[in-house]
């Protein structure tokens, strides 16, 4: 089981790198969907198989792998653009920085004094790396869709961290977190839809009407 979990986590890290390197919206959404699937599978292998874990896994897949891409595709359908051409940080540089983040995540995790039952796992560095990737996507991309994906990946990273080190988190809270993510993506998709209609592009750096004029 341990090996299987590590393979899932490895796939997750891979998807992070692919996300850092892609400019096409459809590919990004597919990758994020794949991450959602991986996240849904993780608790099934990581924890004992109870009704609780199964429900959580189903919920995660429903929210992160089914609802999420649908909402984003819906929001994108009026937009003519298919890819992000000029991010603030280029794709090659993003990949290099990704490698640096990965190294830092491993170094940082090795220095943490974690509870015994999470210490040897690959999950903690993988979660830090995923969160860092999300945060980086969020600040280095211009297009609203990629920023939403950044938020989503950040949330994924934190979710895995919670899964690894806080196994006894109450069911209600996990469901609540999941519900919040669902509504967040829904509301963001709604706003994204309006950004496309209003600006005819989703380059959020063009949202700059509001500032202190003096």
């Amino acid at each position, binding site marked *: 089981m341990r090996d299987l979990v590590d393979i899932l986590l490895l796939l997750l890290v891979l998807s992070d790198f692919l996300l850092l390197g892609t400019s096409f919206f459809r590919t990004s959404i597919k990758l994020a969907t794949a991450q959602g699937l991986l996240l849904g599978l993780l608790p099934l292998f990581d924890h004992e198989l109870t009704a609780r874990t199964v429900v959580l896994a189903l919920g995660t897949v429903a929210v992160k792998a089914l609802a999420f891409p649908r909402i984003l595709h819906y929001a994108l359908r009026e937009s003519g653009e298919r890819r992000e051409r000029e991010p603030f940080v280029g794709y090659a540089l993003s990949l290099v920085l990704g490698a640096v983040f990965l190294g830092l995540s491993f170094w940082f995790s090795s220095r943490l004094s974690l509870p015994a039952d999470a210490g040897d796992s690959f999950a903690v560095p993988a979660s830090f790396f995923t969160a860092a990737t999300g945060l980086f996507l969020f600040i280095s991309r211009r297009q609203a869709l990629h920023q939403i994906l950044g938020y989503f990946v950040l949330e994924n990273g934190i979710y895995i961290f919670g899964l690894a080190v*806080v196994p006894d988190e109450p069911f209600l809270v996990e469901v609540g977190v999941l519900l919040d993510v669902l509504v*967040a993506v829904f509301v963001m998709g709604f706003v994204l839809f309006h950004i496309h209609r209003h600006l005819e592009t989703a380059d959020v750096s063009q949202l700059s009407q509001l500032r*202190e004029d003096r």
Partner: protein
Amino acid sequence: MILLCLLAPLLAGLLCLRVRDDRSRRRLAVGASGLSLLAAASQLPLLFSDGPSALAQVGWGWLRLDPAGLWTLLVCQAVSLLATLYATGYLVRSARDEVDLEMEASRLSRTPEALFSACFLFLQAAMALVCLAHHLGLLWVAVEATTLASAPLVFHHRDGKALEATWKYLVVCSTGLAIALLGTFFVAVAAHGHSSLDLEALLRAAKVLNKPWLTAGFLLLVVGYGTKLGLAPLHGWLPDAYGEAPSPASAVLSGGLSACSFLALVRAVELVHAAGLAPMAGDVLRLLGLVSLLTAAVFLFGQKDVKRLLAWSSVEQGGLLVFALGVGAPAAAFLQLAAQGFAKTAGFLAASNLIRSHVTPNVSGIRGSLRSRPISARLWLGAILALSGMVPFGTFAAEFLTAQAGLAAGNWISLSVWGLLLLLIFATTLQAVLPMLFGEPLIPWRHEPLWSVLPGIAALLLCALTILLPPFLGPQLSGWFAFP
């Protein structure tokens, strides 16, 4: 009984999406707000009961009511009710104006009004959940829910500016809160093997929690919930969101929602205090408070937009709140919380009247309002004076108590910077506000309808009444506070 605070707005909000008739929808909103305020008020004895750790169990396991939660809940509910009353007239006016302007627009505006009322109520329910949550995980869920419920309120006007404000609000606050979630997990690691994330269990086990993890968790929680409170340098979304939201929504965002964010922050501070990390927490909070005051002072200088003026004042108030907590005066912080919440409500409602009558959001477009709109202008002046900490408003007492506690704790340097910045902010604010009141009026005098002024007057009266509270702010609100 207290569960009504949660359920009444939630159910009414769901109903609002269904009800087609505008009038009955507005009545429903007012009724639900009033009911939840009554439910909260019925728990008042909790604030005055003896013993430092009064706690009322509410139905479910993690929903509990402690004095701090009740205090915040009362402020939120009162602000929400006043804003809802104002919104009733505001929405009637908006609907009518749009009929006059453009038939198309009035037809389109139907759905947004239902969505506006529903989200207003959802926001109230989420705020009540924040006040009741005694589990750090549930607390996070509730705070995130407030963000999501309020985003459509900011988007109400549906133009480019509203879009930009909503986008910033959503992504900055959501990302900030993601960091708070990480902080929550860090606290869970710190408590591993000792306690769950249940607040009372954590407080009991505080002494044995893993200190480095707890410190890191606390810092992340401060960053996360501080973003929501609008502390500089995490305030980027705030002036835009408050400036672009319809005024009743701005009033609730700044009066009620910021109070909830502050309460979430207080929970984290409570925990590190119990764990004996008070000096570290105090340093962090004082520093953040002063940075917020400084930022507000800079941006208030020569501010041209009326609502942004109030928004920057919110950054200032957030700074004052955490500073009071940082010098070890939680009672002062809670007093400030109530007083500034009411003052900002009065401010936003009065500003809304002035903006609508002058048809401009600019400070320079409003002149001589004391003669053209005497009541709103006086309300506006009163609110600004209250926010500046003048007598006879509760903010004066709160700032006095803060200074007293700061002197007692020997925080000379930070306290003098604090005082200096307050003076600076007072001067710059008055410089912007006074020309709005005096001089030749730009518009003719007209009778001001009751709905537009009564909620503001009530808010300002409440703000004045809070100055009488200090003798009653006994150990109930500050009992948890262990002085370093």
